[in-house]
């Protein structure tokens, strides 16, 4: 207790549960002033819950927190903000139609001399100071929708700095940043700590954590499994502590063999402004990856193939039969399934139960002649499908999917399509935002589907993932298929070069682990 620097923040036995499932079990962490603490763990390990408790969004079931020695129990995020605890969110909370300065001072706009009136001039001056401090070179009057994802992230940070922060929480701040923007963010974090603020840094990019943090805390299944100075960790030890086993193989062994039968045949698909003359085939049992930078038209292509969006010319043939109408229903009936990129808004009914989500796409197949649903049979099938994926839910027919972890939510989406016994499955970023263990399970299911002769089309921004799960990789650039690589020709440099348009994939972050994440100015 009397160690030299009095701790900035102390968690003591903090615990929390949802729906009878413990999410945090008695967490103890001590953070010194000016310290950067890396918080790592699989999705569902309890990181977000712990930070929500710190940020006043949730109340702990047990345990206490102390901030600079004083008991700290915020009732809401505003309390937390007043106490100097600020949260830089993973999802950006900005109003794209408002200007930078409006966004910065949305809750606390500088007042003019006459009360009740606001002073845009004052706001601009203060905004300029803040922007200079974080190194964002923009006029404060610029509307936010003109900013790049990285700039928006910086703005979000600037927002949190407009007070005098004591603890700043960063939740996956680099997912939408370029390498340069990431460097600038790290410099800014160090600057913050020099001014005395403590930082909690949550990320799946373990190299960054190792690079940036003084102390590293590993959570697994709601428990603190390891904590210590950076020097005592390596990436592999972090992973093994997170997963609880040695995951020497992130990618499962592949068993599927592509056949000769063409199941999906896309010919000259074009839609002005999004994709241009896209032609490819996927065979039964084949896994075809689609790589490209953000804005290369990958998701747009997938949506057109699935019939969600219209196209101007070209054809989509399923087992030799053309499907001219843009209508997901007819594609599903033809044997197609689609795991969308946006699982909250397009993949799931967030407040509905796990089983009703899984059953949604097959309702007509479980109907009697009168159009009534054979509920019991559907429930059994849905449970079966969820078990195949090892989906963890305390009460699948009651628990809303909203309360599942990201990985389990994604499993619910995939379980829904498994139930349709798809002959073609399109997956758009199926492992984004889910933890290592769930990723492994997704890869296993993909391989298993392929083994049962499903044609798989998988879009991803993670090149290593595609190289380890696919038989073939298509590279898209500016709406066109720029290159095609068979498994024997997989080469990170060449694939990246194709994605960047031959100009070389020079990235100052070494091997681009997730190059698809961002390249400014590459939006079609």
């Amino acid at each position: 207790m009397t160690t030299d620097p009095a701790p900035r923040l102390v968690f003591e036995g903090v615990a929390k549960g949802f729906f009878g499932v413990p999410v945090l079990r008695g967490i103890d962490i001590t953070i010194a002033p000016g310290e950067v603490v890396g918080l790592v763990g699989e999705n569902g390990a309890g990181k977000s819950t712990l930070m929500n408790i710190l940020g006043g969004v949730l109340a702990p079931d047990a345990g206490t927190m102390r901030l600079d020695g004083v008991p700290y129990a915020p009732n809401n995020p505003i309390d937390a903000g007043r106490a100097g605890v600020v949260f830089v969110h993973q999802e950006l909370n900005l109003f794209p139609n408002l200007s930078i300065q409006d966004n910065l001072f949305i809750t606390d706009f500088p007042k003019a001399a006459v009360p009740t009136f606001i002073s845009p001039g004052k706001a601009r001056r203060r905004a300029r100071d803040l922007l200079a401090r974080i190194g964002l070179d923009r006029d404060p009057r610029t509307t936010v929708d003109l900013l790049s994802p990285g700039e928006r992230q910086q703005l979000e940070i600037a927002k949190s700095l407009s007070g005098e922060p004591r603890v700043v929480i960063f939740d996956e701040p680099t997912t939408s940043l370029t390498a340069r923007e990431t460097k600038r963010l790290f410099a800014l974090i160090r600057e913050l700590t020099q001014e005395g603020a403590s930082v909690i840094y949550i990320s799946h990019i373990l190299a960054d954590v190792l690079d940036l943090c003084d102390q590293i805390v590993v959570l697994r299944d709601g428990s603190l499994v390891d904590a210590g100075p950076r020097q005592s960790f390596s990436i592999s030890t972090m992973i093994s502590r997170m997963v609880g086993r040695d995951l020497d193989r992130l990618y499962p062994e592949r068993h599927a063999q592509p056949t000769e039968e063409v199941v999906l045949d896309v010919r000259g698909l074009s839609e002005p402004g999004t994709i241009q003359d896209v032609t490819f085939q996927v065979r039964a049992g084949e896994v075809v990856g689609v790589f490209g930078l953000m804005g290369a038209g990958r998701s747009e292509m997938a949506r057109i193939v699935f019939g969600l969006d219209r196209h101007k010319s070209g054809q989509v043939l399923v087992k030799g039969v053309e499907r001219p109408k843009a209508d997901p229903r007819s594609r599903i009936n033809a044997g197609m399934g689609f795991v969308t990129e946006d699982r909250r808004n397009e993949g799931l009914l967030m407040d509905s139960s796990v089983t009703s989500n899984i059953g949604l796409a097959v309702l007509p197949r479980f109907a009697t002649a009168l159009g009534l649903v054979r509920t019991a049979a559907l429930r059994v099938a849905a449970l079966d499908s969820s078990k195949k994926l090892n989906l963890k839910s305390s009460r699948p027919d009651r628990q809303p999917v909203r309360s599942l972890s990201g990985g389990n939510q994604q499993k619910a989406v995939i379980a829904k399509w498994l139930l349709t016994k798809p002959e073609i499955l399109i997956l758009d970023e199926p492992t984004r935002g889910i933890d290592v263990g769930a990723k492994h399970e997704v890869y296993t299911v993909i391989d298993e589907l392929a083994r049962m002769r499903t044609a798989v089309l998988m879009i991803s921004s993670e090149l290593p993932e595609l190289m380890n799960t696919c038989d073939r990789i298509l590279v898209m650039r500016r709406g066109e298929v720029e290159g095609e690589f068979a498994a024997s020709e997989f080469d990170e440099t060449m694939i990246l070069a194709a994605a960047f348009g031959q100009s070389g994939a020079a990235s100052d972050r070494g091997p681009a682990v997730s190059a698809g994440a961002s390249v400014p100015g590459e939006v079609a």
Partner: protein
Amino acid sequence: MDTDSPPTQKPALDTKPRSATEAPRPLWRRFLDSDLFVLGLTMVVVVVVVPFTHGFLSPGNLLNVASNFWPLLLVVIGQTFVLIAGGIDLSQTAIMAFTSVFGAMLVATSASPALYAKSPFWGIFFNETGGILGSGIGVGAAWLVMLGLGALVGALNGMFVARVGMPPFMVTLTTTLFITAFTVWSTKSENILNLPPAYDWLATDWVAACIAVVIAVLAHVILSRSVYGQWLYSTGINARTAQVSGVPVRRVIVIAYLLSGMFTAMGAALYTARLGAGRPTLGANLLMDVIGAAVIGGVSLMGGRGRITGAALGVLFFVVLTNALNLMGLEFYTIMWIKGLVILIAVAVDTLRTRMESRA
């Protein structure tokens, strides 16, 4: 749940087996969510009101309450389908007047030229000797025509909402304007009198009860057991997810409005039979009762939530409340105030419930 009733800060993480335990929802939440809540409210009204009124529990008055209940139930069932789809049907009262008047024109036994000669349909659908469908078996045909007209207007509403993508309140408000104008123009604001005796059959208590109960049971089965029902809920909860999952979202929406129009026309036929006349202003003040009853019955204005049992109890509550207030001899504006307050509270509860849900 019954282990400890005050659900306070008991740590949820623990060692006891939790496989069978349900989400620990506070008792009052479960009560608010259940149909018992509305039934309780109705009881409260009855208990409070009985000492202040004469003859609230008399057979005559109870029959009166029942005869108000059945037609309103039909209309509310229609509204329930649309609300679950995430829409709202403001055109129901206009559809009531429209179908009431046209059904009556087709079967009136006689009509006075002095009143109706200016109607554009004079000499086409009806003249001095009555409506073109005659008054015997033709009455059944007229009822079918009413249902068809209601379904047609509903389908048009649905098309504009689902195909054109217009906001439901605007579509149905515009429809109200058109249909009301057309109805008034068709009748020159006159009631269509002289309904044939066969029409009175619908005014019989047991017939009205049978129709409403059959439709309610049917609607309940559709919503809770059928593929269409599941599609309807998923559309109301999240139309994009529903679409990606192969739900024919547009068709689902069109059918919801179509059913709303059709059930409304059924309600209109019952009302018309009781009035003994086709009335161009039928249901003029009914819209708030309809939406209020549905919302009190737990049908959400945000879409995706609601059941027929709840809606029916909501109707019961509203009919009992109105009747009680009338019996107490309150002024008409006082009654409006009270009803307004009740609806306001119901909508507030609905909103809070939705908000708490999405925070969990």
